[in-house]
């Protein structure tokens, strides 16, 4: 059964230096508050994976806590490039970053394979694509029935998956709604799962096919209103598009970045998130 815990406890009990962690979310429901707590905890040498590492991974990479990144699209959605990630890849600042790059289809399938307890995922993918020659974890496999050559990638099995969701019921069953990405697969692919939610309600009161993650598949739940900001939580508050635009400027200079991180992350707590979404609530 999931334990209801303060976010600091959830992070400190489950994330360690050297851990393989995924903070998933496809533009929607990105677990910013949990990631900021991880930054404040001082852990380092993380391996991170995510289909769409955006601003939050840019922040973690710029803070020097990431050793390796597994990803399929590393951009600031709708804005442009990730400047801290670029600095790490192009100039090894603040440290070298090992990258393992896939396509979205392959990464989605590698989560699915791990959640299904399979060693690999098979897809008709990477046809003619250059990544096949650059990433040793993209291999070919022959279909034993048709002889067709298909792409194979290993299952993605993180130590910890971290997601943000709308709500949990009083037993710790979690409802994820809207653009659900690969959050369910990510939770079920990991050894442990941390979920932050907007609120706890007595009953989820939803329909039979809703995307619900049962309490017994989750390690820890923390209530953090606004915990996805500047991403959004459907039904609670909108995406703060101007913050994403602003990040392009903040991240373009190493000192501006460090200053911003000190003021807005290191010297803040999770309670700041609720205020940040006040003007974005419906």
């Amino acid at each position: 059964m999931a334990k209801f815990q303060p976010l600091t406890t959830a992070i400190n009990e489950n994330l360690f230096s050297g851990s393989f962690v995924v903070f998933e979310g496809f533009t929607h429901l990105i677990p910013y508050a949990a990631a900021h707590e991880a930054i404040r905890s001082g852990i380092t040498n993380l391996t991170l994976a995510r289909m769409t590492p955006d601003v939050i991974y840019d922040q973690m990479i710029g803070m020097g806590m990431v050793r390796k990144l597994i990803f399929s699209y590393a951009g600031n959605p709708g804005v442009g490039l990730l400047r801290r990630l670029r600095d790490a890849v192009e100039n090894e600042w603040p440290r070298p970053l090992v990258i393992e790059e896939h396509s979205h289809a392959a990464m989605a399938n590698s989560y699915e394979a791990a959640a299904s307890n399979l060693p690999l995922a098979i897809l008709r993918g990477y046809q003619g694509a250059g990544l096949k020659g650059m990433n040793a974890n993209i291999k070919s496999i022959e279909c034993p029935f048709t002889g067709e050559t298909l792409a194979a990638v290993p299952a993605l099995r993180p130590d910890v998956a971290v997601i943000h969701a709308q709500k949990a019921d009083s037993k710790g069953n979690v409802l994820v709604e809207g653009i659900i990405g690969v959050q369910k697969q990510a939770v079920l692919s990991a050894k442990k799962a941390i979920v932050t939610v907007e609120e706890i309600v007595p009953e989820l009161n939803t329909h039979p096919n809703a995307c619900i993650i049962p309490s017994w598949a989750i390690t820890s739940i923390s209530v953090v209103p606004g915990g996805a900001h500047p991403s959004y939580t459907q039904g609670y508050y909108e995406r703060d598009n101007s913050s994403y635009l602003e990040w392009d400027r903040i991240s373009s200079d190493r000192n501006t970045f460090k200053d911003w991180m000190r003021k807005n992350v290191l010297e803040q707590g999770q309670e700041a998130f609720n205020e940040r979404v006040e003007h974005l609530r419906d």
Partner: protein
Amino acid sequence: MNYSSYEIMVVSAARLLKNDDVCFVGIGAPSAACNLAKLTNAPDITLIYESGTIGTAPDVLPLSIGDGELCSTALTTVSGVEMFNYWLQGGRITVGFLGAAQLDRFGNINTTVIGNYEKPKVRLPGGGGAPEIASHSKQVYIIMKQSPRSFVNKIDFFTSYGFGNGYNERSEKGIQTKGPQLLVTDMAIWKPDPTTKEFEVVALNPGVTRDAMQKSVGWPIRYSERLDENTPPTKLELEVLRDLQERTRMAHSKTGNSGQ
């Protein structure tokens, strides 16, 4: 009515979309073209964004591929696994839209790196869904502005495959879809030659010279024997597009608090 080269690009792409198309839409010009088509010549077109939103009808253009507007106006929203496996790999997409940092004459696309992969001069975002959009969509449409920096003789990295070196290379690799069938730019409309698969210009935008064309493209341009002049945007097309962009601007400036 006066119009910009961006406007004629978006309008030209929108005109070529049909009611029975199922489009895998990208952010930027493709999104503008698809939504303009939905508001004008193809009201029943199906728009899919890779965040999992199927049959979406946003009132404003999304800033990101996963804006809430896409989900709340969609027929249904599915998981990432379902999106890429059932709908894309399953062969349900008639038109996949792609953009590029670098494009070559055979429709091969680079959005990964400028320079060497291991030690890049510029690390770009990478492919995302594009490698499989390129191979699984029945056809690929490319919308982008012409410039010598992006229309290059040789791309630095094969993020998404078009026709490789041309001729039958694509089908010999076992890829069964048609590949890039249309390239719409701010200056012209291009289509692949049926035999060589090299893009050739089939229509020039009004006022665009061959000299200006060649200055913006890094390979010797081939022109179709039946070269047309593109039709300028109509008053209605421009009004609908400008309304859409104004609504979009208003919506995205609403969230004004820049600090986190």
